[in-house]
């Protein structure tokens, strides 16, 4: 049955992309949960993570990557990008958001938009580095090829019409343990308890002796690191990166977070899987050029009709 194969294929692609979006969406939802800020710069942080990974690969040498050495390179990139994005996110909070903790939410959001634009510009400059991986840096703004370290062979056999590749395996092998680990941190550790307390009531948390600034910093660090992991698997999955990709990825992830109920981590994952599926189904059965419209349309409709999201609890709205 050909149409079943076709449908299964969209399902696999959609869910794998959804899991990548989920890692980014968790970063949005964690920050929103704790300081009620839409961290506009998060998508662009993800973009810079991909640029770091490609730079590292260029420094390691663009030889024949295969077998064990390829997997070693993947692990190195994952660790480096996660560390880089975590530290950068923490730094952005320190410089651009922390001084505004008592200012209006509008100022905070404007500051985040500013941070986002600065990161985009850094990505543009980064693409102009005179390295082989950036094609000598001549056309800085052009999309960059990301080497296919992970093979595209079909694990279901050459004759199968449905493609399930090591790339899909990579996505699940990286994302699922990260999500389990994060759940453990949030529900079982002292830090997690402090995070939940700060999210509920920062003043009371401070009165109970919680260093809320440190907790908020840790939230940015963890959220950023997840974005870094996401950037590497995204690049290995799609094999092309661009300094403008953060905006799209960020909007997808933010839509996912809102869809699942912003502030809720399981909600973010569920929302991301839905967005991934909507994207792949729309690409396959409708027209690719309308896919963005559909995703943004969903975002607008959800915000209008069910702003608390699919899994979120009903928030009491202020006037």
């Amino acid at each position, binding site marked *: 049955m050909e149409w079943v194969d076709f449908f299964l294929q969209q399902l696999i692609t959609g869910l794998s992309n959804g899991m990548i979006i989920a890692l980014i969406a968790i970063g949005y939802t964690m920050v929103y949960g704790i300081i*009620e*800020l*839409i961290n506009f710069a998060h998508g662009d942080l993800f973009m810079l993570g991909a640029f770091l990974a490609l730079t590292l690969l260029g420094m390691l040498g663009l030889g024949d990557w295969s077998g064990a050495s390829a997997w070693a390179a993947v692990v190195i990139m994952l660790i480096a990008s996660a560390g880089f994005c975590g530290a950068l996110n923490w730094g952005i909070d320190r410089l*651009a958001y922390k*001084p*505004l903790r008592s*200012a209006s*939410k*509008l*100022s905070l*959001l*404007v*500051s985040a*938009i*500013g*941070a*986002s*634009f*600065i*990161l*985009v*510009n*850094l990505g*543009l*400059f980064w*693409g*102009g580095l005179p390295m082989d991986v950036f094609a000598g*840096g*001549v*056309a*800085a*703004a052009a999309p960059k090829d990301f080497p296919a370290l992970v093979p595209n062979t079909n694990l279901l056999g050459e004759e199968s019409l449905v493609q399930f590749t090591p790339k899909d395996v990579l996505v699940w092998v990286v994302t699922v343990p990260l999500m389990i680990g994060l759940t453990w941190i949030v529900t079982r550790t002292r830090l997690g308890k402090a995070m939940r307390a700060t999210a509920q009531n920062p003043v009371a948390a401070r009165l109970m002796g919680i260093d809320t600034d440190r907790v908020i910093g840790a939230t940015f660090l963890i959220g950023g690191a997840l974005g870094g992991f996401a950037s590497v698997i995204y690049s290995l999955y799609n094999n092309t990166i661009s300094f403008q990709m953060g*905006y799209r990825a960020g*909007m997808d992830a*933010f839509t996912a977070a*809102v869809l699942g109920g912003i502030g809720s981590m399981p909600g973010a994952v569920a929302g991301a899987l839905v967005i991934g599926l909507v994207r792949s189904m729309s690409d396959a059965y409708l027209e690719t*050029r*309308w896919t*963005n*419209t559909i995703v*943004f*349309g969903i*975002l*607008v409709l959800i*915000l*209008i009709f069910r*702003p608390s999201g699919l899994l979120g609890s009903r928030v009491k*709205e*202020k*006037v």
Partner: protein
Amino acid sequence: MRLLPTPILAYFAIMAALPLFMGTSGLFYDAFQAIFVFSLVGLGLNVVTGFTGLLNLGMAAFMAIGAYTFAILTSDIYPFQIGFWWGIVATVVIGAVAGFLLGAPTLGLSGDYLAIVTMGFGEITLDVLKNLDAVTKGTQGINPLPRPTFGSWTLELQQERGWYWLLLGFVLLAVLAVRRLERSRSGRAWLSIREDALASQCMGIPPKRTKMIAFSTGSALAALGGALFAALLSSTGEPASYDFQVSILALCIVIVGGMGSVAGTLVGAVVMVGMNSLVLVKLADWAGAAGVGGASNVLASPNNWKYLIFGLALILVVRLKPDGLLPPRLEGGSG
């Protein structure tokens, strides 16, 4: 009450006289025509964000709606051809209606959700304009567009001084209208909603209707800016000329100038758009003349610093001068 306070009068006097000293420099006219177009968009956003405290990240979409409405109603390739002046009138009306239609279901949302809805609306508008090429001519844009006529005299495209004064005239009209509105019942309601929504509701101010009026006013002004932008180029340009970056430029104008200040918006437009279309272009010329430019080095092209400048402007102003360059004087209305 005087019609306009001294700083605003001085602004218009200087601006009106400026072309007399500038000769025929194309760069000067390009930059200032853009400054006036964005002054209109900025004045609109100032009503929404500055006066009423609602963040609209989709101003570019309303500009696009204005540009395309004007183009479809006036261009020879469509049957309407209602002429420049009626086209402008219709654009302002349709801009206000578009703002009303987006505002009606969304203005109950709290601050940042509204920002995201308007941003999503901006993206949807762009995609629709790009994809509905049967109507919008896709990336080609709709052209040519008619020129304004005064009696039997027509303002031709190359008469840059005439366009300059025409646009300045529209900015003056918009400033008078916005200042009039600010002191009206609606305007006082905008400020009170911004300061304390709950208290003003208790005083009998309907929050939703007040926000709707602000939103429609802002959209109408942005649509006017878009229509004039298209008329100036005799083309709507491609849909990508109305992308998110344009909405952020409008936001920069209002934040840098001073939220809620009409004079601030005018100054913000000169600073931000002037930076964008005068300073960066001039720097690129110099870099080219000095031989450091070219496609080979990304840092050498001043245009590539644009995002960085916008981003830094937003962060630094919010942090160091949260009220902007020319903050409003609350006691006497905007200064």
